[in-house]
């Protein structure tokens, strides 16, 4: 059998959503960013809200997210995406607005913007990619870097007495009255991907209810920053990241229990 015999409409079981552009992803092979991009775009396609959605790209590896997502997008300054999203949503409350942010962006330089957007209960979706490191700038320590974890600015491991502790931002924002749905997911296995997609769908659907922030953390790998192969990185993530950042819902709307 030739390849051309296989490529037929009736054999098609999976197709790239047209909402992902044909630009070649700038992410390292095996990186979680690309998978999460796909899930968001599939969600927007399935909900039929392409013309009603505005995305906010952060500073970090996903700074160019707008090259891959075929929707109107704004690029925000480092950490400021929740403020930018607030500015958008307040003038267009009927639109769907989301931010896409790394851990440095959301939990270090942008902590104030994150906390206050969540506390005000802005009716937006926040997608938070936690890879425990600064991917874009070459693997420096992040606020979420685990104790003992080696990065280029903690070359002997994160010494918490000297460098502070890893921050559980998701648990933190779950405490705020303005968050409606807070969950922690991953995309390292097909099962995790399916679960994560459901969470993202819920996080977007929630915007219709006007009840505040839906916050989806995705614990992800940074194989380049961690200096591992993609497979090693996923195993390391399961063994080290998940015990400290356990997967699952942290705050679920009472009316959906």
């Amino acid at each position, binding site marked *: 059998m030739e390849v051309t015999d296989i490529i037929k409409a009736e054999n098609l079981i999976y197709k790239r959503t047209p909402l992902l552009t044909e630009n070649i992803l700038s992410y390292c092979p095996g990186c979680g960013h690309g998978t999460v991009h796909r899930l968001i775009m599939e969600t927007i396609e399935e909900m039929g809200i392409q013309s009603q959605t505005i995305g906010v790209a952060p500073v970090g590896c996903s700074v160019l997210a707008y090259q891959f997502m075929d929707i109107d997008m*704004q690029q925000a300054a480092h950490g400021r995406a929740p403020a930018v999203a607030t500015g*958008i949503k307040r003038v267009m409350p009927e639109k769907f607005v989301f931010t896409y942010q790394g851990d440095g962006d959301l939990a270090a330089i942008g902590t104030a913007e994150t906390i*206050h957007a969540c506390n005000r209960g802005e009716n937006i979706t926040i997608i938070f990619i936690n890879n425990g490191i600064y991917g874009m700038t070459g693997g420096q320590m992040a606020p979420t870097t685990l104790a003992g974890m080696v990065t280029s600015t903690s070359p002997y491991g994160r010494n918490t007495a000297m460098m502070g502790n890893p921050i559980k931002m998701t648990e933190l924002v779950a405490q705020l009255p303005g968050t409606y749905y807070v969950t922690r997911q991953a995309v390292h296995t097909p099962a995790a991907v399916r679960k994560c997609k459901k969470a993202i769908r819920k996080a977007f659907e929630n915007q219709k209810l006007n009840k505040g922030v839906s916050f989806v953390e995705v614990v992800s790998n940074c194989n380049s920053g961690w200096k591992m192969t993609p497979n090693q990185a996923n195993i390391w993530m399961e063994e080290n990241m998940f015990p400290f950042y356990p997967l699952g819902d942290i705050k679920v709307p009472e009316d959906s229990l």
Partner: protein
Amino acid sequence: MERDFRLMKGNEAIAEAAIRAGADAYYGYPITPQSEIIEYLMAEKAYDRTGMVVLQAESEIAAINMVYGAAACGRRAMTSSSSPGISLKQEGISYIAGAELPCLIVNVVRGGPGLGTIQPSQSDYFQSTKGGGHGDYRLLVLAPASVQESSDFVELAFDLAFKYRNPVLILSDGVIGQMMEKVELKPQRKRLTEYENWSTTGKTPDRQRNIITSLELDAHKQELINIRIQAKYKRMQEEEVRYEKILCDDAEYMIVAFGSSARICEKAVHVARGKGIKVGLFRPITLFPYPSKPIEEMADKLKGILTVEMNAGQMVEDVRLAVNGKVKVEYFGRLGGVIPSPSEVLNALEEKIIGGK
């Protein structure tokens, strides 16, 4: 239609003018001496009057980034602050300039550096006119000298911001912001219902997606963006220079001053005229683009120019550049929130310009 006169503070006039100019959103953070702007918008329930968004942000940084978000949706968005807060906004202002978004920023200047004082000052001239944040960019800067101009410049600022897709700064100060004067208000203008074709309002099937960004990693492409932006500033220099001349026609000497300093100097000019000194006042209204040409044209007829500024001599550099050595230019000013008196100005004119060599 009946004319609408009020007695108002400069800051209140800006707030009222924003509602009437059809502003879509105000995001701000309190700081003296400009907090009346957000207080007025809230007390007036601007959101009920026109549907305008008024939101107190968690910081000036957040506020300017909210402005970025709303401006990128094609809305008339604004913020206001005073010097320390404006410093915090500089990153955001640079992004807004880089992404070529229209917006209005109001700086009611107080004395610095650092936390400084809450008294009026003009020490943010450099920051306002030379860029302020990182990168090669300029704001279009309007300097009101009265409560009336504080009000009038709001609608003008929004219109210029949209004309050039560039942030516009109203550079007020603690005197203009806090004093009360009679002001004639403009009629209510409608808020926008249609938005520029670059706005991120949701990608419809009939168009490509709109992307608002200041990022271009390719240096050659980034250079082209810079060249395009610079051409815009050149066009502002050709089309938007605004100034006022008082008693300059027969003048042998000229004082150059803007904002509240210009009011003090106007008084000094009248006192000097009473003493037989032929002095006029040149008041730049746009600080960028700076009225360099009109000042240069005056230079041949003058024996000397004095700039009067509530700072350590910032605008004097632009006047010297404008006259390019054709005539003597000296500076007089008070620092740190102290307001010069007309007699101090007159003394400085007599000592540094008329009597000086």
